[in-house]
């Protein structure tokens, strides 16, 4: 294999304040052949994960009626594929629920088939 078949992708490591600039070389089959630029093992693992299957936890708010505030903060119960984040937020922008809610209550089951639920991140009592 020669070098010209490689494609290089750049990432910024988020593992610590050093912020190493990482490079991942991929061959024509889409396999990783080299990871450069890290100062520790954590950086290598991060580059591999970001390159093959980047995931994010999502935090946002949904509309709530009858509580102290008109918005309820929520989060995904786990990390979802990065390219689904905006679609997930679009779904959540149309959700409207009623107070009371308790922290940990499931607001949306299995968001977009990701296997992750959306849960409340605080209590919101019903205002009388």
């Amino acid at each position, binding site marked *: 294999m020669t070098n010209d078949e490689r494609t290089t992708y750049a990432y910024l490591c988020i593992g610590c304040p050093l912020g190493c600039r990482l490079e991942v070389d991929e061959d024509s089959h889409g396999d990783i052949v080299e990871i450069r630029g890290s100062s520790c093992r954590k950086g290598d693992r991060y580059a591999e994960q970001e390159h093959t299957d980047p995931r994010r936890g999502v*935090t946002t708010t949904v509309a709530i009626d009858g509580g102290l*505030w*008109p918005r309820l*903060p929520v*989060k995904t119960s786990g990390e979802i594929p*990065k390219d689904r*984040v905006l679609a997930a937020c679009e779904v959540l*922008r149309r959700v409207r629920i009623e107070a009371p809610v308790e*922290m940990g209550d499931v607001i949306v089951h299995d968001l977009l088939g990701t296997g992750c639920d959306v849960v409340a991140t*605080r209590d919101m009592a019903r205002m009388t």
Partner: protein
Amino acid sequence: MIDDRPHVLLPNYDVVVAGGGPAGLGAAVAAREAGAERVLVVDREAEAGGILLQCIHSGFGLHHLGEELTGPEYAQRILENALDDGVDVLTNAYLLDIDNDQNLKLLSADHGVAILDTEATVLAMGARERTRAAIRIPGRRPAGIFTAGAAQRLVNLNGVLPGRRVVILGSGDIGLIMARRLTLEGVEVAGVFELMPHANGLSRNIVQCLHDFDIPLHLSTTVVEIHGRDRIDKVTVAPVDAQMKPVLDKAWDVPCDTLLVSVGLIPENELSRELRLRLDPVTSGPIVSSTMETSRDGVFACGNVVHIHDLVDFVSAEAELAGGHAGRFALGARPPHDNVRLQPGKNVAYCVPHTVTTDQPHTVYMRVRKPLEKSMLRLRDAEGDIVHERRLRYVVPAEMVTLKLRPGVLDGFQGDALQVEVVPR
């Protein structure tokens, strides 16, 4: 969490805490654990929790609780913990004044103006944002200009979007978090502009708040003019030269209806000034001893009201210390006075606490002025001799440096002042 039972005020307290954020709630619990019986937290907002309630993102508690929580989750945990511990919390109440006999004056929605007698007080009023006036951008003053924190509150609590197309000035974490937040709510973020040649936020936020959504970050660039009649309609931005002067012939216009300014926090020190506490000109917060006592006997302080913390975990640790000492003070304990002053030396902007003792363990928090890759933290005596040193890996102004002084480290030190420096090794 809102408690709707009528609130009963006692005529006197052991410890009254001003501010119900993580600092105030943590201090109140520590005061109870130190033996203080009547402990009251007052907060001017409708619910306790402080700034955490609007920080709906994740990233709180990794050090202190061993798991990563969102701001509201962390707030609810510590509030439940405080209530379970017998701390009394009064919301919609503003601390106005403390007189020389430790009488507190409150303005409360439930009780009107109330005077309380207390043995000890803890100041935990947090911080406020630096405003645009502090950086003086020329141009008109149309609507549509917000601090990033005010916009965060609007979006996350009030459910109001500040605009449709936003420019963010300043690359600190609050600005970065808001860039993502607005994007997720369908608002277009035209770009983040940073005067310095490096970003001020964590790399995690650069990646997950900007790169993930292709939001451009312009370093060494600033907003030089604001345009618009009633509402802002564009800003002019320009790169800056090595002296931080804008290069106006390279300026360009960015259409937008909103400008978010995220140029940092400053301790909420109105009350500290009024009480004539001695303030540190660098932090703008009160000068504190190793027990977190201010220049006034029986008045302690912790959290962002003392200096700006980037991690809530450190706030909680500092609150435990302040609250514990306030509780013991209320019960009559008077620890010996500190005998060593800490003075910021080379590349150190400030140290908190400002004084320590030689015979107790202490945690000293400090901020460096310039980033350094491999560095050495040194304590020097008046003659310049090294009393203690420690290697540090990578230091940046945006991240607090902590020094744990174990007992024994200062054994044999006879002087009354130590210079603290962080220099290349």
